[in-house]
């Protein structure tokens, strides 16, 4: 007797029969279906109690209201707050991705002290006490040596309690160097100041305008408060017209009623050309011009002599007949509105251009009128007692600012961050010994990245308050991580471009996830460690107490509704709107309409490089989160390579999709070519918001940073950066 192959087969058959008669196959099949729902990489929100917290998004200056849905203690989704005066339920891709900035991998989880070389990425975790002691020691030494003015602070904002606390600390400590991140706000504020004599932010009554003349503003690409502008654009579709003037067929241009391609950088001339037609044909608002403006005759002479449609056509490339018809449509519209500031408005631009465009608004009499441009006073709820400075502080405050703002040369400009790198690198004035960066990422966002890095390396003590390991944090000596916007209280005064004063309150949606501290609390702790008058200037126990006291009777409303607005607000009437020396609107135009000369000579660099902005790429202080970067098309970013847009006529020798070397006087980069009929010949366009060297793996090393290829160009009147592009060339890779 032996066991044969047949017996074995028989065993298998018996086994198969038995298995089929057992519940095993059915059960396993059922279980495998269920198992597929248990894969650990499938994100499933936990089950639990759902709640909603209203807050304000502070990822950009747009100030949208948000409603965050939570399950238990976990934030699940960010939605736009219904009924909020800015965005009424809408939200943008960055705001929607905000949770990735809360829970994502890019956060700084505890105070860090550099142990390797600058930017090497070697850090030591330290406690908050040690971190604050470190700052106090350094600042104390500088102050003892009478060098308090060598401390500078770069801040993302200059309004709201956090910025005021920073400014107050610098004042009482003894430094004049509080510097805000540049944007078109600088130019608009200066325009308001020079032409209307008011210190106010500019507001646009976009919802009521019926003819919008945009000089390159990315109206639906992040200019102003992005969600509000997109909503306004929907209104214009029904009852209005949009004319977009820019050299590239942007999304805004594509969605407008008329796109007028223009030689880049000649927008001021076009505005004055339009003014010429309006004045010549007497289509301006005579009531406003005759009764509420001064030096109109002088303005008229300049415009009529130098900016005839034919002359302007030569400069701008826009035909004389187009200029005439534009002028007519603009002047005849019942609520015309002219706006400027290119793309998302991150580069201040030339003052001439802003004043020329604002003059158009004045000519049609839409200043402080429905559908027009309004001067919006800041909601003045921050009424802290004046600080008492000691002698050191007073001496320090009397020193000239390092960036040259408020100097004889640029008396009316408040901040000139773009001049800071050069001021530090040239060593002309005094060295900066300590630099604080709050709510900003200058190493990434300021033009001429190499010069910025060099300047940072010359500052012996750089402190970053960033919640994220951004480029500036990576190049600092000490990181004191702030709570992210979903973890902290903060007041958000009138969002950029809004026509009425409101205050929003950002509230903690979740508990702080890591060992971070509110920057307001850190300032209070530093001040208290100094004692004396510095400590006296900060009588509050905590930032929250300070905020609550400052907001006073508005606090309850802010907590309940998320925002406070002055329902009775009306813009000043023309009789009392202007505080210029003449008491009227001043058409004066400080430097004529010379266009800004960009860097580079035509022989070596035959092309012009301009940047463009997109809603999908955050190009400011916050880097685009993974959700947003996923939405970027292949014609912008192909794998890790950046794609530039060139007109097929210009790029004859380059095959679509192939590599090329893009060089400018500031640097060069390998790019891919995309033939695009929607861009004027002779121009290369590069997307902004890419080329990060810090943040997380989803963002790092993707494309190149436009700021590495361009440097600032100083506006002659304001000193602000007016560079709208740079000369460039493309060579085969």
């Amino acid at each position, binding site marked *: 007797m032996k066991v044969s192959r047949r017996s074995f087969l028989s065993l298998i*058959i018996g086994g198969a029969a038995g298995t089929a008669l057992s519940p095993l196959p059915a059960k396993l099949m059922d279980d495998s279906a269920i198992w597929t729902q248990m894969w650990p990489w499938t994100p499933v929100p936990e089950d639990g109690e*759902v709640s909603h917290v209203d807050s304000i998004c502070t990822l950009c200056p747009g100030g949208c209201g948000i409603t965050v849905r939570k399950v238990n203690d976990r934030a699940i989704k960010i939605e736009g707050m219904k009924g909020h005066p800015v965005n009424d339920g809408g939200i943008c891709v960055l705001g929607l991705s905000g949770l990735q900035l809360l829970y994502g991998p890019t956060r700084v989880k505890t105070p860090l002290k550099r142990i390797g070389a600058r930017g090497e990425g070697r850090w030591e975790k330290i406690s908050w006490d040690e971190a604050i002691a470190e700052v106090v020691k350094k600042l104390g030494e500088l102050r003892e040596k009478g060098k308090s003015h060598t401390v500078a602070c770069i801040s993302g904002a200059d309004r709201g309690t956090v910025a005021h606390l920073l400014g107050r600390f610098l004042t009482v400590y003894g430094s004049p160097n509080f510097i805000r991140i540049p944007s078109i706000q600088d130019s608009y504020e200066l325009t308001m100041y020079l032409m209307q004599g008011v210190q106010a932010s500019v507001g646009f009554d976009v919802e009521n305008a019926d003819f919008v003349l945009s000089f390159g503003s990315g109206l639906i690409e992040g200019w102003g408060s992005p969600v509000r502008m997109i909503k306004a654009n929907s209104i214009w579709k029904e009852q209005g017209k949009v004319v977009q003037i820019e050299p590239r067929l942007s999304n805004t241009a594509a969605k407008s009623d008329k796109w007028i391609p223009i030689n880049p950088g000649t927008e001021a001339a076009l505005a004055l050309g339009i003014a010429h037609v309006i004045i010549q044909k007497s289509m301006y608002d005579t009531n406003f011009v005759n009764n509420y403006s001064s030096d109109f005759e002088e303005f008229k002479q300049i415009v009529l002599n130098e900016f005839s449609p034919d002359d302007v056509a030569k400069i701008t490339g826009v035909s004389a007949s187009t200029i005439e018809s534009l002028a007519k449509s603009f002047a005849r519209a019942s609520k015309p509105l002219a706006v400027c500031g290119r793309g998302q408005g991150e580069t201040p631009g030339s003052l001439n251009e802003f004043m020329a465009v604002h003059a158009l608004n004045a000519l049609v009499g839409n200043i402080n009128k429905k559908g027009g441009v309004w001067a919006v006073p800041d909601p003045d709820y921050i009424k802290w007692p004046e600080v008492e400075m000691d002698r050191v502080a007073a001496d320090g405050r009397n020193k000239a600012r390092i960036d040259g703002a408020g100097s004889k040369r640029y008396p009316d400009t408040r901040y000139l961050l773009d001049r800071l790198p050069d001021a530090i690198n040239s060593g002309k004035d005094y060295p900066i010994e300590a630099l604080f960066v709050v709510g900003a990422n200058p190493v990434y966002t300021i033009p001429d990245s190499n010069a910025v890095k060099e300047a940072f390396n010359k500052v012996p003590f750089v402190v970053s308050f960033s919640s994220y390991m951004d480029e500036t944090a990576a190049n600092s000596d000490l990181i004191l991580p702030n709570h992210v916007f979903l973890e902290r209280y903060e007041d958000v005064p009138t969002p950029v471009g809004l026509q009425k004063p409101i205050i929003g309150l950002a509230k903690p949606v979740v508990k702080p996830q890591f060992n971070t501290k509110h920057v307001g609390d850190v300032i209070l702790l530093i001040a208290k460690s100094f004692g004396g008058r510095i400590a006296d200037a900060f009588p509050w126990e905590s930032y929250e107490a300070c905020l609550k006291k400052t907001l006073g009777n508005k606090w309850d409303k802010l907590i309940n509704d998320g925002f406070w607005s002055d329902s009775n607000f009306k813009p000043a009437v023309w009789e009392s709107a202007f505080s210029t020396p003449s008491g009227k609107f001043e058409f004066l135009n400080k430097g004529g309409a010379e266009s800004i000369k960009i860097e580079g000579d035509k022989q070596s660099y035959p092309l012009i490089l301009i940047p463009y902005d997109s809603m999908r790429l955050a190009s400011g202080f916050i880097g685009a989160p993974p959700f947003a970067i996923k939405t970027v098309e292949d014609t912008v970013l192909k794998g890790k390579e950046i794609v530039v847009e060139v007109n097929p006529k210009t790029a004859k020798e380059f095959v679509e999709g192939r590599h090329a070397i893009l060089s400018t006087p500031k640097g060069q980069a390998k790019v891919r070519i995309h033939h695009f009929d929607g861009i004027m010949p002779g121009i290369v366009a590069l997307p902004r918001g890419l080329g990060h060297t810090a943040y997380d793996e989803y963002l790092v090393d993707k494309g190149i940073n436009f700021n590495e290829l361009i440097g600032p160009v100083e506006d002659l009147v304001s000193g602000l950066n007016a560079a709208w592009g740079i000369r460039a060339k493309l060579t085969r890779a």
Partner: protein
Amino acid sequence: MSTSDDKAKEVSAEADVSAEAVDEVETASPPKVNEKKQDNGGLGFIILFFIIGLVGSLAVGWWIFPKLLYSQKKQPIDFNHVLHVGTVEEGCESCHYFREDGSFSGVPKLAQCVDCHEEVMGEDPEELKFVEEYVAKGKEVPWLIYSRQPDSVFFSHAAHIKMGKVDCVICHGYIGESTHSRVYEENRFTGYSRDIWGKNIAGLKKNTWDRMKMDDCAECHAENRAVPKTVETLPWPISWMPRPYEKPASSQIRVHIEKDACFVCHK
């Protein structure tokens, strides 16, 4: 598959071949007798092995497999429902209540327990453990949930309890009458509780609360002609196991697929 006759033929043919081979070596031996013996022994073995295979796999499938498939877990705290139901005023809903937005709270959170158990109230060592390890440390109790459905299932308690007036017992059984927490059997493969498939590995059930599969939803919906109709109107049986219940005589489960029917429960 070949018939048994074919099989016999194949076997004998093969035996012939081997017999011839034997002939060649040992010329004198009478081949017929040997052939017969070998044949009988082989068949016996074949049947024996078939039975071993059959019985073995049946044993594996019905007895060993369930033992291997489920791990036995103890609840972190042995909970006495009877004691609690006797103390609270509103029965089940005192702890398992509907939130303001209509969602169901399920297993209570620590915050609810703390309302009474801030301090130790009785002498039960389990309560002491609860207060010391969870209440004092502010830690949530990691309760193991017997009735947790896979993530693909959307189930609204409000629709069933408030609108359908279904008693808790129909699905959850007489859990309120338990004095100890029973062992939680976790499916090692899927991670879900054994209660979903049911204790009986064949899927048989005596009571409505013995199983919580989709068929059970469908059964109840068919019996009660409950809305949404979509639950009772699937054209094919979900489970191929024999159904332990009679279909309601009055109504055949109608084939009637409405648009988006699946997504009523599978969001």
